[in-house]
């Protein structure tokens, strides 16, 4: 069907119905009433734990690195996926791991069908995906991830364990407060995800189980210096 024909039908329906036109909506972003940083972090940690995330509150990026190395050392192999250093709050993150003989799986996905599938096969072996965040939301314990260059979507999707790094100044009280500050960031890449806890389902007799298609474990490392 042609666009103008479709829209014309819709317009005719609206006119027939005589729906009230509402011009100004009083809707505003809910900003939340917490401004104190320590309280915000506390709430964020509390809510993230409530949705079954593992949170690690650390004082500097060196302890953050140690936390990640600890997680990596528990894995069956040394393969991992991650965002580019530019997007991570730990300086030279990937270089450090490279020196420790960890293998960074390149997650650039080519167009060609065969190459694409062999890349997926390779990426599937990665045990951990490490990403930064655009923001954290204290009232729901959520993290927000974008997909600009160097911020692969698959790092937080294909792996069984997702580790997200966030600095304490990135935590907003609510989604409303983030949108009123940075709403352009939500649409500046092709994909923006608001992630609240690890993947889950209750489809079978309403019993909650974690890790169906996405990562079953989500670690959030909060760097507060």
């Amino acid at each position, binding site marked *: *069907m042609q*666009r103008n024909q479709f829209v014309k039908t819709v317009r005719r329906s609206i006119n027939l119905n005589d729906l009230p036109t509402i011009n100004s909506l009083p809707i505003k972003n809910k900003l939340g009433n917490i401004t104190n940083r320590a309280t915000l972090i506390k709430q964020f940690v509390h809510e993230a734990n409530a949705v079954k995330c593992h949170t690690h509150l650390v004082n500097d990026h060196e302890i953050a690195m140690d936390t990640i190395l600890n997680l990596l050392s528990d894995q069956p192999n040394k393969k991992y996926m991650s965002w580019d250093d530019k997007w991570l709050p730990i300086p030279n993150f990937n270089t450090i791991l490279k020196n420790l003989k960890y293998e960074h799986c390149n997650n650039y996905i080519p167009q060609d069908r065969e190459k694409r599938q062999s890349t997926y096969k390779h990426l599937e072996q990665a045990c951990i995906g490490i990403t930064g965040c655009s923001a954290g939301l204290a009232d729901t314990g959520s993290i927000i991830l974008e997909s600009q260059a160097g911020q692969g979507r698959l790092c937080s999707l294909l792996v069984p364990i997702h580790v997200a790094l966030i600095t304490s100044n990135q935590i907003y009280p609510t989604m409303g407060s983030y949108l009123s500050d940075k709403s352009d960031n*939500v649409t500046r890449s092709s994909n923006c995800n608001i992630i*609240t806890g690890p993947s889950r389902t209750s*489809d079978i007799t309403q019993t909650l*189980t974690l890790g*169906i298609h*996405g990562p079953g474990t989500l670690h959030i490392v909060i760097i507060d210096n």
Partner: protein
Amino acid sequence: MTVTKLTFYDRIDNALSHPEKQLAISAGAKAKYINRANAMAEFQDMEMTRQLARQVRANTLSKLDLYLEQFADNVETLGGKIFWAKDADECNNYIHQLAVRHNVKLIAKSKSMLTEEIDLNDSLGHANIEVVETDLGEFIVQLSNDRPSHIIAPVLHMTREDVGTIFNENLNVPFTTDPSELNTIAREHMRHIFLNADMGISGVNFGVAESGSICLVTNEGNGRLISTTPRIHVAIMGMERIVPTLTDLNTMLQLLARSATGQKLTVYNNIITGPKRTNELDGPDELHIIIIDNGRSNILASSLSEILYCIRCGACLNACPVFQSIGGHAYGSVYPGPVGSILSPLLFGNHFDPLPHASSLCGACKEVCPVDIDLPSLLIKLRTQNIQKGSAPLWMQISQWIYAVTICNPILFQIFLQLAQTITNRFSQKGWITKLPGPLKNWTNQRDFPALAQKSFRQMWSSNKE
């Protein structure tokens, strides 16, 4: 949508003859009802947010033509393709041709009631293109050739044993009833599908007019996978699914999660703004968004347009005492429960006319609706229309006519009242009738029928006067 030949009453009888399913359904629905109530209780300004959300929906529908154009312009600027589909055939044909053009053999699909509405899987199946449902519930439904019984929880009617048996028989795995083991089986089976599919198909929870974004909401992550790993992503959107701004989207997401599952937010709120951009690492090269009418513009033109406010959270299903008893299948439509009783006759025709009568009009649905749709009033409007067009059962039409004549005539009213008084009191014990004769006995199987008062108000009035 494929329509069964069974009448509504046959389908209800069917449902009531499976007590184990009935138990699973009522337990599941009640659990969801309680989860929602708890989540709402701790939601600040809940009622105000609900009324704002209602206004957002009203505003959107009153200017839907403009918002649709704005949305389409933005999607096209981003390099996405828009297809306008009048009905199921136009939509299914478009996807079929697209699949053939790109030599697509395998499609991974995330849960979408709209694709059930248009029978997309059947249509592609006929063309030898394999479509795999990736939502765990929908996957189980697909394996067992069943139909979803709830818009949020497709296998609400199944027990663990049912699911264990289905996996055991279809996937060549040992029988188990442990949900987490069943989960792992599904995860492993589905990996291959995600990584090899050439096309991903999803519905759309919300389209954002100001940015041309679409939002897919999933807990499992399948919505993210099917919109990331395949080369082509096709999203099918009912034309009413628009919100004007990201701020409005936020309001809707908060209400949707709480109403549907009692979560503060769904695990993955996946906002997609165009196909993968040139410098990005992963994501689909092509994004096709199909905006479908399929009868919605007729609803929009009618006095029942309020039903288009619906954001498909399923809260009214869980709250409905009728749904809790008969489950989703008895409705015979992809949209069951109170919302389905209104949508189904409007979208799928006369066969579903009896549905609006299956309600006690208790109002529980309106009470839990995140956009405060006046479902009981809409049900009454549909009942009225059924009587007017003569599609209600004959006995109902006759009794309605008798009632109308009687209530308008004081003398007749007096006579019938006296008659009812005498008869009901004659057969009652201590003011209650425990057994009614003939077809009326179904009523007294479960409960007693009250006899009319010994003395009517009129009688008391006139005796007091004296």
